[in-house]
């Protein structure tokens, strides 16, 4: 997974560049920012969603992480979408991230 053209001056290899969106109110846990362009640091294996959740918790979440993550997955009532499809159809926590993926975390709405 070595990409010489993505080498940085400090020899940090970049493996994933993609977009994370928070909608339906989930963005309120992230200072109201709905869209984040994210570059993940390189690692020996592909990143999967399981690892991404930990990274989000450590790097983007402002406070009250229990309102986003419970145990090792997202809390009930948040739907995860990978390129406009329910993550259940894509392998859930095991899905391996690809460059330019669009990952959406959306709170379900109940109002009427």
């Amino acid at each position: 997974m070595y990409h010489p053209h993505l080498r940085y001056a400090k020899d940090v290899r970049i493996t994933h560049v993609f977009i994370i969106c928070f909608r339906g109110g989930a963005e309120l846990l992230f200072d109201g920012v709905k869209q984040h362009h994210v570059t993940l640091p390189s690692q020996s294996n592909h990143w999967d969603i399981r690892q991404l959740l930990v990274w989000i918790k450590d790097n983007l979440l402002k406070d009250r992480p229990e309102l986003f993550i419970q145990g090792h997955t997202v809390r009930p009532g948040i739907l995860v979408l990978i390129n406009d499809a329910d993550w259940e159809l894509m392998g859930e926590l095991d899905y391996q991230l690809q460059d330019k993926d669009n990952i959406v975390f959306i709170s379900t709405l109940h109002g009427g």
Partner: protein
Amino acid sequence: PELSKTSLSNPEILRYSRQLVLPEFGVKGQLNLSKASVLVIGCGGLGCPVAQYLAAAGIGRLGLLDYDVVELSNLHRQVLHGENRLGTSKSISIAKTLRKLNSTVDYVPYHMILNPKNALKIIQQYDVIADCSDNVATRYLINDACVVANKPLVSASALRWEGQLTVYNYQQGPCYRCLFPTPPPSETVTNCADGGVLGIVPGIMGSMQALEVLKIASGIASSYCGVMLMFDALDGRFRNIRIRGKKPNCVVCSNPTEFSVLQDYEAFCGSSASDKCRMLNLL
């Protein structure tokens, strides 16, 4: 009483002429509509446009269920009520307004709260159910009763600038519990009173809900089986999302008997079925 009809009268042909000429709809679609009954649960921001366009299109019977009365803070989005209806029943208010638009529809207002005791009995009497409710506990109750009664459930919701819509328990699609087996923690649930909502957002989502009910009731397949519509009014964008199918391990779908309807949905969800006494939450 039975809704039965084998032909359209001359006034009906004139009234519905603009939709009768559509080959995909036609006389057959109109007759199907006139024989169909739809239950609208929740007579608020979503329920108003749903009921309005179903009545205009000539649905046979329209059940209208809401325990609530009209308040001034409803009128920015609940467009079938009015200043002279403040303090009166929402379900009766909608029936009164719509009788002037189309007196040939059979309106059945239910001024009551939907609960585990009455839900199945009422839902069984209708062909299609529209979830226009405003709280998590009622949404789980409606879902479970629809799975048990085997009724298609056209579900929409709106909050702030956003809306969501899908059709549950229809063809091979999922039910609400297949998608959300566990209710959200109650401190993460926001209602319209706390979070606010731009009135036209339930207007748009309710209109889409009316469209999908009309398609199912007239015999055209819905586009939202296994697909969820997401709308953001601030950026004016709609997205169609592919969602999972029916889950073999869903507690309701795997055992759709009357015992699958719980005794207490407020306890299950840790929240009230009335959105009035909720504290202010973060999201």
